[in-house]
């Protein structure tokens, strides 16, 4: 714990004026988007995308920042091949026509020195709509395992898939989709 605090304090000292804005790159092993849908109106089913890439800029002094997050839809993983193929198909994620989903924001929301949300644009099935995401548990510290400086948090959002034209199987599969993305992002050297 002390090591974390020391690293934080050091990093704070170093970055102060010279690097007002720092760039961060998302760690693909620990930044894996999960989504939840209601199935048959009763159970909560989860799916996941295993591949994404993301970058963020953070300027703690100015309390500003941006993020760009791309999900590769062909990495959809429902836990069984048949189900994955089904959810990948036309009418749902339609991965052949739409290989990526994207979230972009240049308006991170700060509360004191913590990022607590982001106002941005979400693109799904080629449709772009405004989306505000919440950021929970935000913290920056040196990873105690590899000693690299990182910022991390849990991102949460809710979308209505019908707003992006994904209407198949509503209401057997819920219109509302809850999205959870743990983000661990390392500061670029």
């Amino acid at each position, binding site marked *: 714990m002390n090591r974390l605090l020391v690293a934080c304090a050091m990093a704070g000292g170093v970055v102060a004026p010279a690097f007002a804005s720092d760039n961060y790159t998302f760690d693909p092993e620990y930044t894996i988007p999960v989504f939840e849908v209601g199935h048959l109106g009763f*159970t909560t089913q989860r799916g996941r995308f295993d591949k994404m890439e993301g970058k963020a800029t953070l300027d703690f002094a100015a309390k500003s920042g941006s993020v760009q997050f791309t999900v590769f839809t062909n990495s959809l993983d429902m836990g069984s091949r048949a189900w994955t193929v089904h959810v990948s198909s036309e009418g749902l994620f339609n991965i052949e026509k739409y290989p990526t989903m994207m979230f972009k924001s240049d308006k991170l929301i700060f509360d004191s020195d913590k990022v607590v949300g982001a106002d941005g644009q979400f693109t799904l099935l080629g449709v772009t709509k405004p989306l505000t995401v919440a950021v929970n*548990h935000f913290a920056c510290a040196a990873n105690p395992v590899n000693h690299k400086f990182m910022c991390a948090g849990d991102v949460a959002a809710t979308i209505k898939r019908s707003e992006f034209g994904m209407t198949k199987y509503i209401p057997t599969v819920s219109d509302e989709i809850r999205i959870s993305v743990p983000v661990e992002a390392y500061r670029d050297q």
Partner: protein
Amino acid sequence: MALGLVLSAPAFAAQTYTLDTLHSAPTFEFKHLGITTQSGRFNRVAGSVTLDPGARKGSVTYEVETSTLNMGYGAEGPESPGYQLFDVGHFPKITFKSSKLAFDKAGVVVAADGELSLLGVTRPLTVQVQHFQCSISDLTKKPLCTADVTATVKRSEFGMLRFIPSISDEVQVHVPIEAYQD
């Protein structure tokens, strides 16, 4: 049909349901470095439920095949941290068994007192049951009972100590259950 009903009458009180394994896969969540909430899943399970709503009794068995661990990092194998944590080579199954379902006044299942076996250690575990409902499936036209089951497990109590606290001791488990009447 009438004959069948007559023959099965006495046993009819308790119905047996078999899990739709595709829609009953467990996911689990843990904290990484005390910050982010990471999740994993097992892809293959088997299980069955007996329900006697009149008597407010029931039981459940649920078995997870540990070799189907899926963390999203790509193929798991003997050398991967996940396989080592769950000691897949020695313990091919995680099981939960309960013969004590808890019903509320309306006859809805709200919890289950049972036993979880993980890494060869068996300990009592109470799981919470939300959204319990029985109906006729729109898709298959068969009687179906469904629920979302949640539980919190301290993995250290089962001897799974590795990577604590980088990977949290406490693990949240979520299991959607969709079970069709036999």
